[in-house]
């Protein structure tokens, strides 16, 4: 009796999981069809043969290689710089316990919850004034600040529990604060820092609102922006739309597979804090 019940729960969960994945399957299936194949069989039929024409057409049309490079460059730079800043801040707040750290933490937390709509117009105006508008550098600067606000918040509580004995041992060995940070604290916290870096990379990769406004020229756009603005394009046929979707999905799935372990571990870290 219970075995039957267990089995049916498993079956129900499996069906739901398949439903979750159906959109991915439909996209992949139609991205490799020819327009003729699509119009004769419709979106639910299996492709008669596999063609990469639609994928290639969309790739060339938006210069997708360039978009991938832009996204990768921005996200990797932000991930690196935001982790460095978070480490410096958390060192002062979590280990140094500087005066007024509670209020400084509140400031970081508020910065993290602010909607980007509140900042966008002044940022847009300032970027134009300083000549940073429509540059990838502008996105790197802005997202380094936004991501490190969260990183500081998370890392400060992690560093708050850092074993004091190690810090004192380093001090006895004659290491100054700067050396202690890079030789003791950072190496010991590497697992957490890696998780943070992965998060910052993916979050920045997925950002849409600010890149949509700041990166208007074709050669600076990121993957989500390139897809978002072509979504309503009347000149794209059905196969090209699914090809576009597939090209947007693939990098995300690649990250997912590479980072799956890191991600699940990291989400848990974030949740308990």
């Amino acid at each position, binding site marked *: 009796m219970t075995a039957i019940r267990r089995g049916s*729960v498993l079956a129900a969960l499996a069906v739901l999981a398949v439903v979750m994945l159906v959109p991915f399957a439909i996209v992949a299936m139609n991205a490799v069809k020819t327009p003729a194949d699509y119009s004769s069989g419709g979106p639910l039929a299996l492709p008669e043969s596999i063609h990469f024409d639609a994928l290639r057409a969309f790739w060339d049309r938006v210069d997708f290689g360039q978009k991938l490079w832009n996204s990768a460059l921005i996200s990797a730079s932000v991930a690196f710089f935001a982790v460095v800043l978070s480490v410096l801040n958390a060192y002062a707040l979590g280990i140094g316990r500087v005066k007024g750290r509670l209020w400084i933490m509140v400031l970081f937390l508020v910065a993290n919850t602010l909607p980007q709509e509140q900042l966008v117009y002044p940022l847009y105006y300032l970027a134009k004034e300083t000549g940073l508008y429509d540059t990838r550098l502008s996105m790197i600067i802005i997202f380094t600040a936004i991501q490190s606000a969260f990183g500081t918040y998370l890392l400060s509580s992690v560093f708050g529990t850092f074993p004091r004995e190690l810090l004192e041992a380093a001090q006895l060995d004659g290491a100054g604060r700067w050396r202690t940070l890079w030789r003791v604290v950072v190496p010991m916290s590497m697992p957490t820092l890696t998780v943070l870096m992965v998060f910052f990379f993916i979050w920045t990769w997925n950002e849409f609102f600010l890149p949509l406004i700041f990166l208007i020229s074709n050669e600076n756009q990121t993957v989500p922006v390139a897809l978002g603005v072509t979504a309503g394009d009347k000149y794209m046929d059905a196969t090209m739309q699914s090809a576009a979707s597939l090209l947007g999905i693939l990098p995300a799935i690649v990250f997912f597979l590479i980072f799956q372990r890191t991600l699940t571990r990291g989400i848990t870290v974030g949740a308990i804090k």
Partner: protein
Amino acid sequence: MASDVKSRERTAARPPSARGSYALYLVPSAVLFACVIGLPFLMSVGLSFTRWRGVGDPEFIGLENYRKLLEDDRFWQSFQNNVVLIIAMAVIPTLIGLVLAAAIFDFVSKHYGQRPASALRAAFYLPQVLPVAVAGVVWTWILHPTYGALNELLGLVGLEGHDWLGDESTALFSVGGILVWLQIGYPVVIFMAGLQRVDPALYEAAQLDGAGWWRRFRHITVPQIRPEVFVVLLTCTIAALKVFGPIYVLTRGGPGGSTNVPSYFSYQNFFQKAQVGYGSAIATVLTLVIVAVTFAFLRAQDRGERS
């Protein structure tokens, strides 16, 4: 606890001059935050008291923008729509996520092992890693009225197709449905992680008392992972209040404003109508709502932990 006290004593024993040097580590961020967040924030709040078209000098008009907001039906509708999207992004995923996580944890990992449990979790989580803009493109195409997959599927079972995103009466619910799909993996993953902390002895005791699955779920599982439920509800509610990408890609706030939300409404005022002052007022109200929601949640959580 003991180590906490110890460390505080040591901090106090440190000479005051040595204390100051830690503050130096905050300088790079202080400069960056002043330019990227502090200054723009103050400018934006200031602009909300002005009339400005983005060129020339802003004209100070006091609370006029806020007075106009209160009378603006589009503004109220955007918040009403946002409530529906909070239900779609926070409430429904939390409820479904609780049941799914508990079912995977109780039935699958205990009796079939870790591998199928991880596979299920991965399947539910996958949409979460997609850029929302990409998810939007996927669904615009699936829901397309003439060549989309959903209408085709409905046709196969003899139902009539529908312009899901183009019809005022269904657009908001279609967007909501997509957001449920997008969001569901997050609570599942967090709750599954939380369940690992729960003492198995609690379940065994309840089982001995003859409590069925549903009763154990309600009286043990849910109360035990309450901290996780709070975190998920708070972060998802804030995310829902900020939702922009799906609206931009799926409907651009239409048809007839039926899917407009405050963030998109402010964007329209900034960049389409060049009403920067009015847009700033909308953004400022949105910020206040988010801050208020955050405080309300944290207080409720605090009370919940104490009782």
